[in-house]
């Protein structure tokens, strides 16, 4: 059933972010949606209970108002109890409604928080090679949006769907007290509506599929052109792309309207039956009052009874409308669930054995506790992976385990990619280093030549921008080296001298071999001069290409 009053929103993030990865990893997992339903079950029950209470009070209000108005007009009596009842039921309906809304909001918040806690744990444990298969931007955008989208599906939409079952039933029961025939008339509308929904659903799906086929790739053209704007400018293509963008967005908007024209018929059906039942019941009840027609259940009623049926008839269809309004949560939530599955799937392990030139076996235990160890080999041989396994960052495999001397405090990793917090230079060097004394920071900074007033004015108090944006690669590297001067564990470095100016590269070589006197330094490198100073040198062979397996 395709129900929506606002068909734009389901498309919202799908095109830019979410649809991209689901296509590739389309295996059916249920690691997010199922657990989320379990996590939200208690809160959902609570929300539903309050929503049922609201519906009951609302029915009570309708009854009291009908009695008050009906008796006033027909009997000329002012029924104070009915007025008090109406006011009381109205206030109670409002309050229970407020509680229901807040319960739903709280449950969704708790669920989203719970999902994020799981995501955080999954991210913290995830091996870098797997984490890097996703672009950081897509990952962040997903973390910001997916938990909320999934919570909306599990709580909001589920509650609305359940109420679509309960609400009309309660309303029909209330009407049945007055006239079971009228109740039956209302209930009869449901299967007829269902039939229309089914018929329309097919048309909408086929139109949506046609749109996807003919115009699907135009869906996110605006986002794409914003993303690629500098490239467009560099290629002098602004006027051309502007016109193309306008044409394509217009074509896409037109094709969207083709789908919406049918999709809105769904909401139209709800409106139609809601309006029609009021009209039909009003006319039948009116004829009954006049005594012109003797339809059982519509004859011999008092005015308050007719008014009651009329008010309830309007309420009867409200749950359908509410569900239709929230229907867009379905697509968003399901897409989010698919995306979130990725975090909770334990990946298969494809172990790659490492082979070293001139060595039959490589044992982690044989590595010394101090000294400079260089690992070289052609690209793709797995130098970085080996280094990461020894550092305990990647799960162990092929007999390579974490170095025994690495404690839970970890080790140092020198690279231009080190984390540089924003703030001052002193804070950047001393970050995660047990607040070293200023004198020690001063010494370390001086030793690596970071106190150059022309390039980084301010000495230890020099300002470091968010993400270290105002630092050159060389300066980042120097901060990394200054940091190892303030620690004592094993040091790892992956191609530390590549992409560096000659002066910084020499400094790196010097500090690494100096440090190797007291601690273990492992480097993966092509730098001949660095290899020369190494105490041991391992050469990794490229992985053997997979030979065809004979059947």
């Amino acid at each position, binding site marked *: 059933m395709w129900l929506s009053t606002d068909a734009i929103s389901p498309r919202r993030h799908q095109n830019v972010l979410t649809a991209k990865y689901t296509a590739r990893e389309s295996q059916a997992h249920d690691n997010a949606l199922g657990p989320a339903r379990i996590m939200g079950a208690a809160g959902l029950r609570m929300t539903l209970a309050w929503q049922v209470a609201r519906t009951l009070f609302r029915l009570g209000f309708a009854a009291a108002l009908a009695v008050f108005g009906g008796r006033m007009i027909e009997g000329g009596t002012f029924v104070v109890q009915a007025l008090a009842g109406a006011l009381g039921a109205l206030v109670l309906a409002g309050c229970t409604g407020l509680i229901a809304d*807040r319960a739903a909001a709280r449950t969704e918040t708790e669920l989203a928080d719970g999902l994020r806690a799981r995501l955080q744990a999954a991210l913290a444990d995830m091996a870098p090679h797997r984490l890097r298969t996703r672009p950081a931007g897509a990952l962040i955008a997903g973390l910001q949006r997916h938990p909320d989208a999934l919570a909306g599906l599990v709580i909001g939409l589920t509650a609305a769907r359940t109420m679509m079952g309960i609400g009309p039933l309660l309303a029909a029961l209330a009407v049945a007290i007055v006239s079971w025939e009228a109740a039956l008339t209302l209930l009869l509308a449901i299967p007829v509506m269902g039939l229309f929904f089914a018929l329309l659903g097919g048309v909408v799906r086929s139109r949506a599929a046609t749109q996807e086929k003919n115009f699907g790739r135009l869906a996110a053209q605006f986002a794409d052109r*914003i993303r690629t704007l500098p490239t467009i*400018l*560099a290629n002098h293509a602004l006027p051309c792309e502007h016109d193309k963008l306008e044409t394509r967005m217009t074509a896409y908007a037109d094709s969207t309207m083709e789908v919406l024209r049918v999709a*809105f018929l769904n909401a139209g059906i709800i*409106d139609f039956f809601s309006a029609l039942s009021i009209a039909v019941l009003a006319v039948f009840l009116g004829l009954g009052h006049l005594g012109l027609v003797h339809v059982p259940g519509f004859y011999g009623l008092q005015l308050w009874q007719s008014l009651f049926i009329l008010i309830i008839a309007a309420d009867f269809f409200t749950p359908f409308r509410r569900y239709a309004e929230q229907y867009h949560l379905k697509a968003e939530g399901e897409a989010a669930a698919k995306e979130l599955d990725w975090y909770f799937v334990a990946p298969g392990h494809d172990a790659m054995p490492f082979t070293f030139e001139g060595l039959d076996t490589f044992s982690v235990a044989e590595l010394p506790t101090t000294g400079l160890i260089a690992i070289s080999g052609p690209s793709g041989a797995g130098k970085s992976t080996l280094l990461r396994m020894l550092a305990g960052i990647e799960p162990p495999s092929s007999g390579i385990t974490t170095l025994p001397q690495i404690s839970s405090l970890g080790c140092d990793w020198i690279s231009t990619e080190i984390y540089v917090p924003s703030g001052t230079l002193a804070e950047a060097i001393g970050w995660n280093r047990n607040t070293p004394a200023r004198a020690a920071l001063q010494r370390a900074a001086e030793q690596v030549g970071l106190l150059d007033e022309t390039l980084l004015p301010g000495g230890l108090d020099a300002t470091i921008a*968010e993400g270290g944006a105002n630092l050159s690669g060389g300066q980042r590297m120097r901060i*990394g080296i200054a940091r190892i001067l303030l620690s004592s564990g094993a040091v790892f470095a992956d191609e530390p001298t590549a*992409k560096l100016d000659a002066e910084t590269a020499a400094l790196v070589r010097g500090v690494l071999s100096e440090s190797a006197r007291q601690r273990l330094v492992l480097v993966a490198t092509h730098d001949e001069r660095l290899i020369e100073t190494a105490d041991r040198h391992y050469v990794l062979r490229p992985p053997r290409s997979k030979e065809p397996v004979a059947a």
Partner: protein
Amino acid sequence: MSIKVAEIKQTKPAPIPAKSRKSPWRLAILFALAAIASGILLTGVSAWFLGAVALAGLGPAAFTFNFHTPAAFVRLFALTKTACKYGERVVGHRAALLDQVRRRTGLFTAMALVPSTRATGWQFGNQDRLADYIDDVEDVDFARLRVGMPVLALTAGAAALVIATAWFASLALAPIAVLGLAIGLMHTWASSRVTRQWASVRSSRRTAGQQIGSALAALVPLKAERAFSSLLQEAFSLFSAAEANTLAQRCAFAFVDLLAGLAGPLAALSVLLAAWHAGHRDDALLYPAFVAFGWLAFGESVQTASRILQGHVRERAARAGLDDWRATADTESSSTSPAPLQTLVLDSIPRQAPDGRRLGDAMSLTLRAGQPTVLVGASGTGKTTLLKQIAGWLGADDGRYTSDGNILHTATRRALSYLGLHDAAILSDTVRANLFAPDATDDACWQAIEAVELRPRIETAGGLDAWITQDVLSLGEAQRLNLARALLSDAPLMLLDEPTEHLDSAQGLRILERVLHCSADRIVVYSSHNEQAAQDAVQITL
């Protein structure tokens, strides 16, 4: 990995551009007004009708009562309500979509003309920043549909009912005025509260995203130091803060909905009470009953109050963000036709990064056609900055660039140069469109593709008209396609940032050689952090 083979299907004639169409807002608003009016009338007339027949049924009037007219009206209103509601949705969405096209093309141009688009690294290359931006654009795009139009319809409905109330049960205006005042106060309270909370949600989410971004960029060193999870903890606590604020926001919305839900029924009761108090009895109560049930129907429509408020708050926040892009637009000069350029003299060009960081002493340089220049230096030494300065993307227009004694202004250098960005993007479009050479023949395109060793890849993809996207190409393939763009460009000033990045060194050198060969009669400057890429070019170390 394979690229989907497909050609653009033109199933329809070219659509009419949005600006030449008439905006259907007026019709949409008309539908919205008619829908709310029919809703009120349907319930009101039904109640009046029931009351009237009930009173008539008690006496001899039963047989003379003309029930056909009210019954016909009831049916009419039922139909118009349904039809107008549908019309409101369809025409409203159509109007919003047309506006969207117009607004977005305008925004695209405005952003292209803002100087920072050229000067700094492109923030919307990041998917999370792009997604935030698109959210903002969308919040503005649909504001009129989600806020403006419903507010107008509800105001009109309320005004009509107030007038009817004044006529039939004027005393009820007092409680209705109190209700209106309460709703106004609630709106003011909720609006300022929710605006504050939404701003805080946006900023915590953004900060959390930035923190996760920098943690992911330093993933391996952080994991080695066992500090990754504590950084994640920090970022995720911001997400929790955002979530808590969202909850507070929704609680405020729940109060708005509570009051909005009470409004219709309370007004209905007030009208009946006031009529009774005024001494109306029997038939005289029928019109008040009509108005009372009209208020009841109106109450149904007000139930979307919190969504209107939410749309309003989001629109304002989004607009504030988007307005920055309209603030300072450069004027784009018409591009002059590329004329041959023999020399380009740079006279003490200041060396300063876009963020104001000093990169070194001012630099003077003479670039000559046929004599490629390579800028060598470690990352962060300002290679990109210098290339952008030469291209006229960055720096003051102060006459420091001359050719044969003529000053080359920023706009001229922009028009004369081809700037191959190191992070050049692939458009979601055909291969041909991605080459940015609308006048090139197929042969020329294929030659360029051949020269960057992409021929087999593009052939399997389906040729020049195959649709490609950024993520079907590897970084190396994207870089090579970018070099094919350079090969097809006839700009006399060729500036390439890291042309061999992401390529293995042998292939990088081969392709660079071909590019340099093709542009032998032009001024070529490229940058590299790899000294091998220097070839026999003039080397400038930064």
